[in-house]
């Protein structure tokens, strides 16, 4: 007899339907008047709202949400620790430092400059984290993300100091807190790069699965362990940097979504990665729709909603992990 799998096809179909529904809702929520009926015969104003604001916003949400969730999944696998994600390894904080350094060097307007330096800082920061891990004898899985959070704290201190000295504290807040309200046509297109990174991660999904089994399993199966780990962590770092520079950081996204999905489906990345991407996109979409309706016609930053929703889910996950450990 075949045991029932945790996730069946209808789950995926239901998730897709939900995603499409929330996506459509996202298109018609906002101060500018736009109703589904307008799509048939859009006036000039409605067309402008649709194509310069609503559609780019929806695309940005889907791209950022899916890519960050996948980045978290890959990172969690390659460090062999369920609590390691771009947000608990210090990667996000390094991008923040990069943004401040880029602003001081090139001025506040150069998106490409911010992105280049953000990517560079994310890569260096993640490499430093992994280097630290390899040199420490760790007995407890929770110590690993604590090291990352500690590292992130130190980096944030440096960033805050710099920002304070150069009067950038307020802007820093705006950059770092995840927010899609600034997304307009012409100002989010670099986010398409993360789609390429996500596709690349999918193509290497089996290699990441094998690397997640550990070094000797990977070598036995003919997989170049060190190279695969480096490529995977680089993908996660680059995605994080691009997303944070474009729309800011969404707390817990890279941590909670991969954990929830792998809890239900197991760790075979080829199967899990597409579902993780969809769930990540849905998570951010729902948070963003909430962020736009909760104080309508004003918006609260999506990072805040993500922090609350993700935080609750994370506590639930931790309690569950505890129960399993003592079961």
């Amino acid at each position, binding site marked *: 007899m*075949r045991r029932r799998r945790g996730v069946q096809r209808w789950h995926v179909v239901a998730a897709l339907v939900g995603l499409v529904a929330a996506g459509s809702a996202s298109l018609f929520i906002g101060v500018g008047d736009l109703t589904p009926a307008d799509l048939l015969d859009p006036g000039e104003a409605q067309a402008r709202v649709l194509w310069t604001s609503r559609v780019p916003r929806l695309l940005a949400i889907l791209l950022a949400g899916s890519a960050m969730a996948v980045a978290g999944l890959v990172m969690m696998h390659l460090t062999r620790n369920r609590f390691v994600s771009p947000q608990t390894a210090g990667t996000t904080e390094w991008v923040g430092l990069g943004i401040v350094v880029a602003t001081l060097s090139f001025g506040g307007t150069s998106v490409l400059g911010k992105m280049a330096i953000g990517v560079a800082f994310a890569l260096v920061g993640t490499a430093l984290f992994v280097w630290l891990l390899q040199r420490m004898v760790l007995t407890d899985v929770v110590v690993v993300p604590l090291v990352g959070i500690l590292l992130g704290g130190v980096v944030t201190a440096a960033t805050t100091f710099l920002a304070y000295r150069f009067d950038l504290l307020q802007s820093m807040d705006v950059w770092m807190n995840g927010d899609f309200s600034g997304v307009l046509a012409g100002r989010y297109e670099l986010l398409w790069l993360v789609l390429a990174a996500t596709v690349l991660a999918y193509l290497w999904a089996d290699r990441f699965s094998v690397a997640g089994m550990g070094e000797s399993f990977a070598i036995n199966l003919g997989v170049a362990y060190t190279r695969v780990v480096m490529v995977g962590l680089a993908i996660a770092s680059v995605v994080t940097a691009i997303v944070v520079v474009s729309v800011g950081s969404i707390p817990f996204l890279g941590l909670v979504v991969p954990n929830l999905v792998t809890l239900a489906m197991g760790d075979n990345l080829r199967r899990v990665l597409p579902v993780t991407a969809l769930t990540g996109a849905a998570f951010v979409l729902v948070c963003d729709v909430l962020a736009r309706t909760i104080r309508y016609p004003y918006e609260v930053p999506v990072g805040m909603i993500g922090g609350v929703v993700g935080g609750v889910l994370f506590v639930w996950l931790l309690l569950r992990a505890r129960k399993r450990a003592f079961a």
Partner: protein
Amino acid sequence: MIEIESVSKSYGGVRVLDDVSLTIPTGGITSLIGANGAGKSTLLSVAARLLPADSGRVRVDGMDVATTPGPVLARRLAVLRQENAMSVRLTVRELVAFGRFPHSGGRLTPEDHRLVDEAMAWFELGPLADRHLDQLSGGQRQRAYVAMVMCQGTDHVLLDEPLNNLDMRHAVQMMRMLRGMADELGRTVVLVVHDVNVASCYSDRIVAMREGQLVAEGPTSELMTPELLRKVFDVEVEVHELAGRRIGVPWS
């Protein structure tokens, strides 16, 4: 055939392997025996390119393991280490299927699926196929790992303490399966074993090590002697012939 040529390896000043040269012929089961710290596991790891040697070289069917591309070697030689703390939640079928990775790179052909089913049937894992590894007992998990290594379909199979975690019944079953892999499938099986009597009853050749050096190697019948066992383990061992098998009794 595995040719080991004057391999040495040190850990922090301690010489774990000291100029070991050895040829393991094709076919049959070869057991590595020796006391704890004799260098058996290290030798196996070096032979399987899990560890680099400080000097010397290892060739498998003429291919230098240090320079042969990983995927090429993964189709000729498979290895399973003693400790396999795996945090990845895979089903037994998924794990065994990864044994085909060196051949098909994740895109399994119908032939691959047939081999996966065959390996699972061989190790009686059929009823556990869709269970996650973390839901299995230590012994079931050990069988799943060995099934994955078998599914790799390599001529050479290197196993470090494959009887770990297995009770008497499953230990015997495992040794019979390995015997079958050697006899029926023509694989060359190399084992690290703790129990000299397991080595004596199931292997064709024995390689005895002590303090990083080779003490003796040869057919099992020639090596199962009180003299050799004393030299290897520093313990007096009586060797008795029981039902055509040589059994060492150290509890005198």
